[in-house]
C-alpha cells in the first residue's frame, strides 16, 4: 500500500508541476497521423511554424484509436497546456462534453463547430475550394471524364465531392464525374494501395484528372495518377511537389494557418482568446488552389483567368456554391 501511495503522490506532484509551468500550447492529431502529407501534416506545419518563429515548444499527441479521443483531450487539458487544438471533425461531441469541465483552458476545434464559451471553431469552405479545382479539372480534362477519390463516405468528404462536381459541371455540363470512396473503416484514411487501385480503375474508365480528399490514401492516388500518365489533384497541403508535372494543382486548406493563429492568440499573454466560429473561405484565403513552380506549366493563363474570375464571383456572392453540410444533400451529383 505504501508504494501505491508513493506512486499516487508522485503522480500528483508531476501533475502540479506541469500546471505551474508556463502554459504550452498543445495539438492533438487525428487518426491519419501527423505525417499524412495532408490534413494532419498541414496542422503540424502550422504548429512547427509557430515553434520556429517564437522559439517556444508545444505538446502533441497522435491518436491511435477512437477510445483515446477523450482521454487525450483530458490529458492535455490536465497537463496545463493552453490552448489545446484538436485537428479533425470527429472531435465535435467529445469537445462539447469535455470543454466545460476545464473553463480556464482555451480549446480549438477544426472542421466542426462546438458551441461552448471556451472553444474556438474553425470551419473551412471546402466546397468553394473544391469548386475551383473542379473547374481546373474540367478544363484540363480532354476526355470529359474526371474522377474523385474520397477517404470515407462521411459528410465532410461529401462536401468536398459536392463542390468539386459543381465546379466541373460549371465548365463542362456534360462532363462525367466518377466518384469512389476508399473504405468504410478509419483505415481508409491511410490506405495508399487502395487509393492507387481506385485511381487506376477510374483511369481505365476514361478519367484523366483525379481529385482526392482522402488524407494519407491520397499519396497512392497521386502516385497512380502519375504512373498512369494522367493528372492528380492534391488536397489540404500543397501536394504539387510530390509528382511535379503530374499534379494539376492542390486544393489547399490552410489548416496550418488555423493552428498557427490559435497558437499565437492563445500564448500571447493577454487573457483574451477569441472564441466562437471562424469561417475560412476563399476571401480569407483559408482555401484555394495552389500554383507553384511544379505545376505552372499545367495551368494555362486562360485557365487561371477563368478560375480567378470564378473566385471573385464566389467571394462577391455572384456564384453560389452549394454546401453539402447545410442540408445533407447534393442535388448536382
Amino acid at each position, binding site marked *: 500500500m505504501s508504494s*501505491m501511495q508513493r*506512486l*499516487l503522490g*508522485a*503522480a500528483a506532484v508531476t501533475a502540479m508541476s506541469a500546471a505551474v509551468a508556463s502554459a504550452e500550447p498543445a495539438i492533438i492529431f487525428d487518426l491519419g*497521423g501527423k505525417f499524412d502529407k495532408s490534413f494532419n501534416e498541414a496542422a503540424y506545419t502550422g504548429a512547427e511554424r509557430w515553434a520556429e518563429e517564437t522559439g517556444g515548444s508545444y*505538446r*502533441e*499527441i*497522435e*491518436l*491511435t*484509436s*477512437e*477510445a*483515446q479521443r*477523450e*482521454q*487525450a483531450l*483530458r*490529458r492535455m487539458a490536465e497537463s496545463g497546456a493552453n490552448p489545446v487544438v484538436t485537428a479533425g*471533425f*470527429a*472531435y*465535435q*461531441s467529445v469537445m462539447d462534453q469535455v470543454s466545460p*469541465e476545464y473553463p480556464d483552458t482555451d480549446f480549438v476545434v477544426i*472542421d*466542426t*463547430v462546438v458551441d461552448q464559451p471556451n472553444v474556438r471553431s474553425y470551419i473551412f469552405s471546402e466546397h468553394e475550394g473544391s469548386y475551383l479545382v473542379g473547374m481546373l479539372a474540367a478544363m484540363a480534362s480532354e476526355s470529359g471524364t474526371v474522377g474523385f477519390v474520397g477517404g*470515407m*463516405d*462521411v*459528410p*465532410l468528404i461529401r462536401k468536398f465531392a459536392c463542390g468539386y462536381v459543381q465546379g466541373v459541371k460549371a465548365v463542362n455540363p456534360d462532363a462525367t464525374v466518377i466518384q469512389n470512396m476508399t473504405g*468504410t*473503416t*478509419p483505415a481508409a484514411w491511410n490506405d495508399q494501395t487502395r487509393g492507387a487501385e481506385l485511381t487506376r480503375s477510374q483511369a481505365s474508365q476514361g478519367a484523366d484528372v483525379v481529385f482526392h480528399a482522402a488524407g494519407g490514401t491520397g499519396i497512392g492516388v497521386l502516385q497512380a495518377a502519375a504512373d498512369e500518365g494522367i493528372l492528380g489533384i492534391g488536397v489540404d497541403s500543397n501536394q504539387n511537389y510530390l509528382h511535379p508535372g503530374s499534379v494539376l494543382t492542390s486544393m489547399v486548406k490552410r489548416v496550418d494557418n488555423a493552428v498557427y493563429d490559435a497558437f499565437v492568440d492563445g500564448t500571447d499573454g493577454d487573457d483574451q482568446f477569441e472564441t466562437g466560429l471562424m469561417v475560412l473561405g476563399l476571401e480569407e484565403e483559408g482555401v484555394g488552389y495552389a500554383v507553384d513552380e511544379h505545376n505552372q506549366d499545367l495551368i494555362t493563363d486562360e485557365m487561371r483567368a477563368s478560375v480567378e474570375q470564378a473566385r471573385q464571383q464566389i467571394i462577391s456572392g455572384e456564384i453560389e456554391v452549394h454546401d453539402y*453540410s447545410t442540408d*445533407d444533400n447534393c442535388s448536382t451529383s
Partner: protein
Amino acid sequence: MPRWADVALVPLINLVLAFLVSGLVVLYIGENPIEALVIMIRGAVGSAYGWGYTLFYATNFIFTGLAVAVAFHARLFNIGGEGQAAIGGLGVALVCLAVPWPHWLLALPAAIVGGAVFGAAWAAIPAYLQARRGSHIVITTIMFNFIASALLVYLLVDVLKAPGQMSPETARFPEGATLPNAGVLAAIGLPFRPSTPLNLAFLLAILCCWLVWLLIWRTRLGYQIRAFGHSEPAAVYAGISPFRITMLAMLISGALAGLMAINSVMGEAERLVLDSVQGAGFIGIAVALMGRSHPLGVFLAAILFGILYQGGAELEFEMPAVSREMIVVIQALVILFTGALDNMVRLPVERFYLHRRTGHL
C-alpha cells in the same frame, strides 16, 4: 508439466521475453527502457485515473476474449468479434435511443438484450454457412467484419446521424440510459473520478466470466461443445448434432461480443460512433489464446492488455520520442510472443519438467 507452469509460468516467460525485445526497441530509438517500463506501469496501475482506463479497456477485451474462447471450445475460430461487437453496438444504440429511459436499471436489461441479440444475429449467418454448407468460419466471419463496418457507415451517415453535425454519429443517449460510472466509488473512499470511462459494465464482464465457466464446465451443452471441439466424429457417434453445436456456440460467441457494446457504447461514449469497437474484436483473439480459453485466464489476459493499452497511451504522452507506431510495435511483440511463439517457450519448459521427473531427456 504441472498445471501452474502451464497457466502461469509459460505466459510469464513469454511476457518477459516480449518486454526484453521491446526494451531493445526502445533502446534503439534512444530512450531509457527501464524508464519507459516504469511510465507504462505507473500510467496503467499507479493511480485511480490509470485503473479507470485500464479496467475500461480490459472490460472490452474480456467480452471479446470470452467470445473467442467459447467458439474455440467447439474448435470454431470466430475472428468476427469486431463485426459482432459493432453490430451489438447498433443494437444497444437502437435500444437506448428508442425509449426515453427513466432509469438505467430499466435501460440496462433492455440494452443487454439488444446488444446480445444483434451480436448473435451477426454471428448466426457465418455459423449457418459453416454448419450447413461448410463455408469456413474464418473466412466468413472476417468478411462479415467488413460488411458490418460498411453497414454502420451507411446507417450513421445517412440514417442515424443527428441532423446538423459533421461527425457521423448518433445523438447522445438520454440521461436515463447512463450507466453508473466508477466515479460513484468516490463516495466509499476509492479515488475514482467520473471522467474515467470505467463503468458498471466491468461487473457485467466478471459475471459473464463466471457464466461462461458455468456453461463450459458445468452444463450438458458445455460438455457437448467441448466434446464436439475435441473430435467431431466421436461427438456425432455420441449423438451430438454438429449443426446444433456449431450454431449454439457461435450464437453465444456473437452475443458475448455484442455485449462489449454495453461497455464501449452505453457506458463510455453514450452514443454510437463509427468504429466503436476499436480493434477490441481482434485483441480478443490474443486474449483468448493467452488465457487458454479459460474464463479466468481470459480475465487476467484482458487486464494485461488493458495495462498495455493504457500504459502505451501514457508512454506516448510522456515520451514524445516514442511514437504511436512504437506503441503498436510493443503491443504486437506481446501478442507475437504470447500467441504465435507460445510453443517456443512451452516446449523447452515441458522438456525441463519431463527431464526433472524422469532424470533424462
